[in-house]
């Protein structure tokens, strides 16, 4: 009976109203999965300077990251979703960080924690430091501070949660294209790294 009234297109406004009157609601799997994704970031156990100390503090009794369900710090990148780049990224660290990033399964996110990871901080012009994690990784959320307080870290994670809920991860064709591109880029990155190694 409901179907007879409809125009046969469940995305248009009038049909939706008819459906809502009959207590039928449509959602998509995408939203359901994003709901899950946004509520269970498992960060990688990674850190290189003083920011990780704040990250550790956020897991302890006073701040308790577990309230949001983000407390499962995995030491293996294969089971982690979130790379929290805490601390400056040095040239020596780059291959390690790139490898960790490559080992994490999709969908995955990067959070730059602290001034050094956001922009290089006080070491911006240093001979061995990259000016920010975004020069090598696709950073999703920047959390400034030197170091940021655990509250700031939580705020950053909640911002990431909003972002994840709005993102469409189902675009398979684009993903395919991106993968092809990434392969090409991999070669370029390798070439660049080899050049850099030669230079050093």
């Amino acid at each position: 009976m409901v179907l007879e009234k409809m125009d046969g297109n469940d995305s248009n406004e009038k049909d939706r109203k008819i459906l809502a009157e009959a207590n039928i609601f449509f959602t998509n799997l995408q939203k359901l999965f994003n709901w899950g994704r946004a509520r269970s970031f498992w960060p990688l156990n990674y850190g290189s300077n003083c920011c990780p100390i704040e990250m550790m503090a956020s897991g302890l009794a006073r701040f308790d990251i577990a309230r949001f369900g983000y407390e499962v710090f995995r030491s293996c990148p294969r089971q982690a979703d979130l790379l929290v780049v805490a601390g400056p990224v040095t040239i020596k660290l780059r291959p390690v960080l790139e490898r960790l990033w490559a080992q994490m399964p999709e969908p995955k996110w990067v959070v730059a924690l602290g001034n050094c990871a956001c922009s290089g901080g006080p070491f911006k012009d240093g001979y061995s430091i990259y000016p920010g994690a975004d020069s090598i990784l696709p950073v999703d959320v920047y959390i400034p501070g030197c170091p940021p307080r655990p509250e700031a870290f939580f705020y950053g994670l909640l911002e990431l949660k909003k972002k994840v809920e709005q993102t469409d991860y189902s675009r398979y064709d684009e993903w395919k294209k991106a993968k092809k591109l990434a392969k090409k880029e991999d070669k370029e990155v390798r070439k660049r790294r080899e050049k850099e190694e030669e230079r050093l």
Partner: protein
Amino acid sequence: MNVIENLFTGLGAMIYDFLIWLTLPDWLAAVILLFLKWLLIILVVIVDVIILIWLERKISGYIQQRLGPNRLGPGGCFQTIADTLKLMGKEDIIPRTADKVLFVIAPAMFIIVAVMLYAVVPMGKDMMIVDFDLSMLFFISVASLGTLALFMGGWGSDNKWSLMGAMRAVAQMISYEVPLAFSLLGVVMITGSLQFSEIVAAQENIWFVFLQPIAFVTYFIAATAELNRGPFDMPEAEQELTAGPYTEYTGMRWALFFLAEYTNLVAVCLMCSAVFFGGWHGPAFLPSWAWMFIKAYFFILVFFWIKWTLPRIRMDKLMEFSWKFLVPVSLGNVLLTGVGLMLFR
């Protein structure tokens, strides 16, 4: 009271009668009923695991003076569902150099072995899938099959950490299998049977934990090591081995390992309450299956408590503890039981 007591057994009989009424042959009705029972077991296992993971996160929080998950639903009880959804959506990575067949089979085998344990574990009075005279032997031998799955996973991943974790798992599980079997031997000597229903029936007047206190303690310690739970979680020691045999597993494959570990935990605790704590016997205001699960959940909570209180012990100390302490003690218990039986029977 009788209705609640016979809820599941009566339902089974009704379904069987209905199938016979549909003029199905006896064997087909029995097979269909068995299939339905398995579905129920799998449902119980999955619901149990969802509750347990939430409970463990919550309890670990309370033990460390934190709150634990509390944003999703009342007390954060939907946290596990969000995690499961996320894990289902993760990319499935199989390393290029991995032994693909072993890598793929290992998690499935681990969970199959874990669910197989429920074939003999009693869940209440007359509530066993199969109740045959060697059910305890079946339990012990099938439980040790899980080691093989872990080793397959560790070997198949072609990763240093995986292999080392798998080797540790094998060493640990084989050495703790011995005191586990010996501690159960004391109970078997008293009842003279390897059948779970008879062992539980023999505890109508006195629970075996009072007759076999040493056996209970050795069983509990050995079971902790068998389950790879803290303080004996050497195979997946995070600080040294990243994630042990599970290092290369992503998404649902890893989740299957996790599911199987909790499934094993419930099975071992059900077994513990059946063998040492009177199984379904208890005051009559609750049905037998409720008593069974109340006791099992009590032991699960004790396992959580131990895991989040004690630090992990070193690998060589772990082996020493098994071979130099637990095995002699459990053997001594067998001797003591024999002497006791000679004197008092």
